[in-house]
Each structure stands twice: as C-alpha cells, then as structure tokens.
C-alpha cells in the first residue's frame, strides 16, 4: 500500500474499472461522479450487445469490487483542478481534495437528436432515441407508443449524429450499428407481429458476435434498407411518414410507420470543456480528448500526470473502455513509482 492518491473523474465503466485496478495496485483512489449513481450511460441501458446480458450484471460486478480504499464522491461534479507543488487539487462542491495523478474518465454525451430537426425528434409523438427505447425495455419489456399501444411498424434510423458533416459529427460512433441490430431483434422478440425496418448507410459489424447478431436479425424478419432518412412528417392520426431512398434499387421511398427510433451517436461531453482547458488539454479533431500517441500511448495526455480512459477519447464500447481503464491504471502506476 502506498500513500499516494489518484483522482478518477467519472464513475462510468471506465472510471470504475480504473479505480478498482488502481486500488489493487495499492493506491488510494478518490472517485468523483457528477451524478448520484455509478455506471454512467450503461446504467440506463437494459441489455448489452452482442450477447444481450443485462447491463446491471456488468455494473454490479464492478461495484461489488469497490474496496475500502476507494473513496466515492457522488453528486460531485469537478469543474476545476489546480496544480500545487507537483500535486493536483480537485475542487468540487466547494471543497478541495489533493491527488498525485488524475485519470479522466468523463465519458461522452448522447448526440442531441433534436439537432437533426428534419427527423422530428421533440416535434412528433413516437419519434424516440435508442436510449429511450432501452428505458422502455427496462420498464415495460417492449416499446410502447404514447397512447400505450404497441407499435405495428417501427423504423430504426442508423447514424443519427454520426458520419454527418451537417451536424459537425463526421466520425463513426462505432456502437450504433450493432445497437440497432440488437434493438431490432429485441423488438421482434417482444412483439413478433411488428414489422421492423433498419435504415442504414453501411453496417459496421466489426466486433466478435456482431455479424452473427446481424444474421439473427435477418432470420427474425428485420428488414434492412440501405438509405438515410431524409425527413419525418406526421400523417393524420399521429402516424409518421418517413422519406428515404433505397440506394440499392435507386428508388425514393416513402413509408408510414408507428414509431421512429433514432440511433443517436456519441458526442464529446460539453460540460467538461472548462476542465480540459484548465488541464491544458486540447480536443482532437472530433472534439474528444486528444491522447498523446494514438497507437502507442492511448491513455496518456500531453499534460504530465493526467491520464485518460474510456469514451472521453472517442466512441468506445464497454470492452474498449475496460481495456483502456486497465491500461490507464498500469500507466498511472508506472508514472507514480517513477516520481
């Protein structure tokens, strides 16, 4: 056990795993989480791709591993970190705490779907986001429309706020394709008579089990249409009319549906802008935290003693975040023993 303390900013998957690993390496850990609960975005998710295990299983497994040397600071947003005699002073809720190193695990925010105004989020009933669909699965086990009825026809729209220069999100958010496929299967399982259509640009099924999930969706009757959504509008009786193009047959397409699910991408967390400036950290070209070396030092930053883990550096899935967290813990350890 050392007498050194590491401050972890963010209590999502990456922050939790980094804390656990650093505690195992003998450090005192102060974990700062802006919300009242741990788990970040994953805590709001029902089931995870590719094997559809419940997200709570993963979070509970992590929270059970929190030892006595991890001090949890919930509802503690960190807006300022000062340097003082080689240490860091973290300011939160009017109090200060010292640390010898910092790990930023601040994560991301979901792309605000209302920015794609033409998709009608916030304007039309039953245009929802992928996160809201997860909440429906958690609370009802199936999607329901605002009138309490199950939808008979659902359109899932990929790449909302991803690979889209019009909304300044030119990058791929990595997890939305497989999330869409997972959610499409879950809708079919919960509501076998419901027609489910996925509108995609191309399907990026890069991870283990992803391609199999895509095949399963096709077998279960999910229909995949290669085309982006052009606009949503409302028909009489609150049904939705969507316009797209089937680019494989080069034909414009109009379809009336009961529900539109927007696969919102990952965006840089705007509330950490000041903190990053405070730590002299530059954003990368997508607005996430710039790492020191993309290939060889992916958890280092340009600021000595400040490390990063998880989706604050760009879109990540849970496996990526856990790997990054373990990597960051080792790098923090190497940094602190060399001091």
């Amino acid at each position, binding site marked *: 056990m050392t007498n050194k303390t590491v401050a972890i900013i963010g209590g999502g998957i990456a922050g939790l795993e980094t804390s656990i690993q650093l505690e195992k390496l003998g450090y005192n850990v102060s974990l700062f989480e802006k919300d009242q609960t741990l788990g970040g975005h994953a805590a709001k998710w029902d089931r995870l791709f590719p094997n559809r295990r419940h997200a709570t299983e993963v979070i509970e497994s992590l929270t059970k591993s929190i030892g006595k040397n991890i001090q949890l600071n919930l509802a503690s947003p960190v807006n300022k970190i000062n340097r003082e005699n080689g240490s860091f002073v973290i300011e939160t809720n009017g109090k200060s705490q010292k640390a010898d190193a910092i790990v930023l695990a601040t994560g991301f925010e979901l792309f605000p779907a*209302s920015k794609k*105004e*033409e998709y009608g989020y*916030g*304007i*039309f*009933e039953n245009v929802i986001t992928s996160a809201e669909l997860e909440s429906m699965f958690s609370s009802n086990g199936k999607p329901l429309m605002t009138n309490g009825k199950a939808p008979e026809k659902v359109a899932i729209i990929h790449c909302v706020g991803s690979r889209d220069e019009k909304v300044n999100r030119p990058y791929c958010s990595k997890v939305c394709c497989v999330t869409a496929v997972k959610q499409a299967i879950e809708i079919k399982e919960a509501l076998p008579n419901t027609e489910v259509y996925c509108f995609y640009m191309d399907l990026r099924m890069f991870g283990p089990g992803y391609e199999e999930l895509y095949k399963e969706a096709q077998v279960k009757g999910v229909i995949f249409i290669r085309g982006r959504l052009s*606009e949503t*509008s*409302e*028909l*009489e009786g*609150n049904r939705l*009319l969507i316009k797209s193009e089937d680019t494989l047959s080069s034909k414009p397409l109009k379809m009336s549906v009961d529900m539109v699910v927007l696969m919102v991408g990952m965006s840089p967390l705007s509330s950490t802008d000041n903190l990053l400036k405070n730590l002299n950290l530059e954003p990368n070209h997508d607005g996430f935290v710039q790492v020191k070396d993309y290939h060889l030092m992916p958890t280092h930053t340009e600021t000595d003693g400040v490390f990063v883990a998880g989706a604050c550096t760009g879109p990540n899935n849970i496996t990526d975040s856990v790997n990054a967290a373990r990597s960051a813990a080792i790098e923090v350890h190497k940094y602190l023993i060399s001091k």
Partner: protein
Amino acid sequence: MKVEGKRKIWSEYQKEIAYDRFYYVRSCIRQTVWPGAENIYLRILRDVLGKEVIESEHHTTCTGIGYHTEVVPFETIQTVVARNFSLMQEAGFENYNPSCVTSFGIYTEILDTWHHFPEEKEKTRQYLKKATGRDFVEPKNLAHTSDVIYKFRNEIAEKAKYKLVDKTTGKPLKVVDHIGCHYAKMFPAKGVGGAEYPHVLAGLVEAWGGEVVDYPERRHCCGFGFRQYLVQANRGYSIAASKKKFESMEPFKPDLIITNCPGCNFFMDRWQYALAEMEGKTYGENGFGIPVLTYEEVAGLILGFDPWEIGFQMHQVDIEPLLKKMGIEYDPSQKFKGPNGEDLGVPEVPNNLKFIK
C-alpha cells in the same frame, strides 16, 4: 405534434428585423402577376403601421433567376447587388427590404460570401466603380417583407377588422403555410424559425386566429423550382410537384394556403387550374380550388382592405368562397373593375375549376 418542440426551435431561430425606415425593393414576378399585393404591403406599412418606406425607380432586378439558371455569372450578380445597395445608401437608408424570396436569398448569399471571402467584395467594389462610378455599403439590416409583417403581426392583429375564423362555425380557419425555398433552406439562421419548421408565416396564422395545418409534403417544392419550370422539357416535373403537395394537404381540408414567395404563390394558384383542366380534379370545397394568398394579402384582408384593391381578382383560384366564409364585407359587382372603375373584362370560366363570375 408537440407544439412546445416547435416553439423551442422557433426560439433558437430568431433574427433581427428593422423597426422602421425600410428601403423597399420590388419583385419582378410580383409586380407583374400580383401588383395589388405589393401595393397593399406599402399601404400597410405606411398607412396602418406608420413606417417610413422608400423605393427607387432606378432599382433593377437582382438577376436571381438568371443566376440560378447559370445565365448570369457570379461576378455580374454581385455587381448588380452592389449597385442596388448603392442606391439605398444614396437614399440615406440602411434597412434593405426585398419583396422577393429569391432576391432575399441572393442578397443573403452575397453578404455571406463577402463575409467569408472579403476579396470578392473588394473585386465587386472595383467592378461597380468601373461600370457606374458608384460605391456601396452593406445594409445594416436585411429582412424579407414577410419578416417585417411577422415583426408587426400582433400590431396588425390589434388593428384587424376580421380574424382567420369561419364566421358560421366560429372555428379557426385551417391554413397551410408554404415557405419559399430560398427564404431559409440555404441559410436557416436567416429565416424566422429556421428552415425545417419556419415560423415566419405560421406565426402570422397563429396571431390572426387561424390554425396551421402540418401535412406530410409541407417541405416539398411548390412546383416552380427554376430548372423544373424554366426548362420547357421539365415542366411535367413542375406540375407533378405541385400535385404531390395538393394530394398531401387535401385530407386536412385546408381553407387557404399562405405563401411568402412570388413563385410559390403563382404556381400553387395556377397549377390548380391546370390540374383541374387536365384531370378534372379540384382540391377545395364544392369544386373550387384552395385559395393561395400572400402574407400581405392575408394581412390586408383581416385589416379590412377592399378585396379587389388587394387584387384578388388576379387570382386563378377564386377567393370569393373564402371571403364569404370569413364574413368579409365586399361588393361582388366590383370584382372585374379597375382602380378607377374601368371594366377589366370578365375572364372565361374554366371547365372544371369553379369560379364565380
């Protein structure tokens, strides 16, 4: 439909619109096809709202249609625009107020170009000097005429004699708003309410007692679309586009269509006649069409201007059923009389689109 969602978007897209002292520039199409509309706009501003408005007989076309059909080069249109700005400067005004949506789009595009590429502005300054000996300054405020009516919509409502209400049932009239593409689709921040859910006309309808109809093809082109209509071989696309809109709005039973673009107004009015003749299909009540009015025509109507002074007899789709529905007092015998009582002649009645002689 969640109105609060739209209100949020509207609050994000608000623009500065001058309060007084407007340098007004006419529209090539409007002064030819709807001369009453431009006249009523000036009367509303001067006589009803008490604003100072000036126009110049030296003002020319912005050459927008030529520019968009690649007949007029960018350098030329920039110089023409600079000359029009120069006339405004000479008149001692700063608030440029175009009546045409295409012109508004042109002025917006050129001001934006000059902002991002100052060398273009400098080049234009030299061209204008060489060609005319003039210099110019950019307007302090650029607002389309529909923006100005929007700004004063509540004041107009207070002075109004009528409301957009069915006099018999007491229910609000159902109004389709159609916004010209060049108003905000190119520069959403320059339009009231943005490009996707514009408020510039919806706000008028709300303030004047009507109910806006949202229908699936609301964003679709009116049918003018320069390359659809100006290229003769493409005119089938033009009428097909208009038809698509009428078919889409028909189930909502709109009482009228309000537009802010000269082209939209013209095509949505005239193509109803053509469709009725070609297919025997009409979209309004009892064999009539759906009346298509500009924002200032609607303003003039509720303010109590004489319908024939507004120029409603120039419309292909008969406006009289709407006048009756709203309980407007008017003299049907004056329908085809000119400003000095001269006989304008009674037009031939279409075969399929009802029209009251």
